[in-house]
């Protein structure tokens, strides 16, 4: 309606201009009209955004997007390069040949398949425990009123801010007294008690989610004879599928990428346990590669460490996550919308 009215008014203006002057000026008016159109096209009007603005936004987004993936592209391209390509200044991006040797050597020095399997375990088991414990705790906080609930929420927020270093040393001693240092239990045990890595975030996500489950639904279930536990796992939990997906994805990624605490508790610093993960292998890539290159025989020559091998090692350690990301990208990108962290 509004648009039509404005259009009509615009027509009137043009009509007035045309009526008054003679033929010569009429051409000028036409030019003016085209100028007007160009101006409108570039700067936009009330209804439509101008071309200039759209252009600037796209240009900025593409530029920043390129900057964002620049390190990954750089990594990808240099991981395929041979030593000659690295030294050749005429080769910037595209390697002269599709060379997989770097990957083979990096994978051998990292003991890829063993570390990959252990990475999956180190990230997967605590994730499952996190899911179980955080959903239960989040439900308890969202559904019931009890004295001291606000204190509990406050402490949960506080544990999110508090750096883990302050509790790390006694925990280390505790684990070593319990005899679970250097085993996967040192990650599983805190996770099952709701104290895993970033567990406060997960508890808050579940808390936020279970608060949105209508209370009437649960009351109806209880009238039908469902206990507290049954109304949790039969009614509330199935409706929290988005929260479950988000928590499991993020928990997996964060445990996978955690190197500081993994090297401390699970793989051990002073005494090496059998556990290792891809990220830990990458952390000690240079020393591992040295060890590996010493075992080389004349039959299978090993090139000394260089940028290409470094980059292919890095690529190998993030490859599983990258594949997971591109397969499940929808869940990752929509995760924050779905959890309702930003409030409804």
């Amino acid at each position, binding site marked *: 309606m509004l648009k039509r009215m404005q259009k009509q008014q615009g027509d009137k203006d043009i009509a007035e201009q045309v009526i008054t002057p003679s033929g010569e000026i009429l051409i000028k008016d036409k030019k003016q009209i085209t100028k007007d159109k160009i101006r409108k096209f570039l700067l936009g009007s009330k209804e439509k955004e101008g071309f200039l603005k759209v252009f600037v*936004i*796209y240009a900025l*987004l593409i530029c*920043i997007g390129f*900057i*964002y*993936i*620049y*390190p990954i592209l750089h*990594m990808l391209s240099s991981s395929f390069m041979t030593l000659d390509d690295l030294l050749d200044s005429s080769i910037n991006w595209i390697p002269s040949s599709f060379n997989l040797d770097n990957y083979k050597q990096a994978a051998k020095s990292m003991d890829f398949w063993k570390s990959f399997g252990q990475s999956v375990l180190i990230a997967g088991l605590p994730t499952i425990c996190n899911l179980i*414990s955080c959903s*239960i*705790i989040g439900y*308890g*906080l969202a559904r*019931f*009123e*009890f004295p001291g609930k606000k204190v*509990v929420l406050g*402490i949960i927020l506080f*544990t999110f*801010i*508090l*750096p*883990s*270093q*302050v*509790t*790390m*040393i*006694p925990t*280390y*001693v*505790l684990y070593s007294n319990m005899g679970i240092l250097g085993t996967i239990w040192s990650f599983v045990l*805190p996770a*099952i*008690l709701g*104290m895993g890595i970033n567990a406060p975030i997960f508890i808050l996500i579940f808390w936020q989610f279970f608060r949105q489950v209508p209370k009437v639904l649960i009351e109806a279930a209880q009238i039908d004879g469902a206990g*507290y536990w049954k109304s*949790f796992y039969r009614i509330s939990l199935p409706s929290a599928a988005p929260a479950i997906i988000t928590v499991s994805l993020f928990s997996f990624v964060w445990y996978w990428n955690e*190197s*500081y605490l993994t090297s*401390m508790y699970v793989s051990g610093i*002073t005494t090496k346990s059998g556990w290792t993960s891809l*990220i*830990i292998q*990458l*952390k000690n890539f240079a020393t591992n590669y040295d060890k590996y290159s010493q075992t080389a025989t004349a039959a299978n020559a090993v090139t000394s460490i260089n940028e290409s091998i470094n*980059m292919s*090692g*890095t690529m190998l350690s*993030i490859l599983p*996550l990258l594949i997971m990301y591109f397969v499940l990208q929808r869940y*990752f990108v929509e*995760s*924050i*919308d779905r959890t309702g*962290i*930003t*409030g409804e």
Partner: protein
Amino acid sequence: MSKKKLSKEEKKNLKKLKAGRLAKRDAVAGILFITPWIIGALLFLAYPLITSFRYALHNIRMTGVGMRFKYIGYSNFTEILFSQTEFTTEMISYLVSTIISVPIIVVFALIIAIMLNQNVKGKGFFRLIFFLPVIIVSGPILGMLNQEGAGSLTSIDTQAITATLEATLPGALADPISDLFENMVTILWYSGVQILIFISSLQKIDRSMYEAAKIDGGSGWECFWKITLPNIKPMILLNIVYTIVFISNNEQNSIIGLIQDSMFSGTQEKGYGYASAMAWMYSIVVVLMVALFAALFMSKKDVYEKQVKKAKKAHKKEQRQLKQIERRSAKNAKKNAKAARG
């Protein structure tokens, strides 16, 4: 209706039921549900916190039998702060780089989010790219990328910036800032989650507010400051806190490496006690920094809400006065009546 139909026995039973019995049962169930957390908090939060404070006051040496404690009071702290220089220099560079990079990350995330919130085609694709770093950002990978120079922009001459910075600023300030420029890309990488949080909160702002503002002649610039910003203010605080926590726990942060090193160092004065003292000071600084930002960005009440409150107060006062006048007039009327009778 149904109340009248209850028999006497049922009424008795109803009286027996104490008020709030259901609520009590609910409370017990709630505590049962969070029992795992309570055990966890006692075992992995309260106990370690207290013990680590005890450690910080002791010199601990590992012997074949176990740990040997020797009470030394505050000398761990004084040793770290005044005798050894490594902790203080790392701390200053950590503080400077955090205080600079947090606003950069949050503002950058906000700009990207606002651009993506326009009618942009391929929104999903851009979100995919901007969220990608969240998946792969971790200490060793960032270390590797920075080591090979992939973390800096080759098109920007970082050398020139570094040189000018070092010429104008004192060393303690110049180093972290020039580090920042050298690793610009990886710092921008920290903003993946923040961008998504901003986008989803931007989408929740009521469109009709912008329309109303436009009708009143507000420009886009004014709309941003007066509508967008106040609406997403709580999210800004959330993002700041998230960014600080993320930077503090990242392995690129050299202080946590320092704590670990001194924990396992075999020298006489270092060890568990020394590392605990370090960790305590570090944690206090982090918590204080979060508190500082929170105080700065805590959502103050709306101007509109304030005015409503004021108006309500004035209204109450008026009513009280009215009542007083009424009471007085009633009294006067009684008096007058008495006087008339008398």
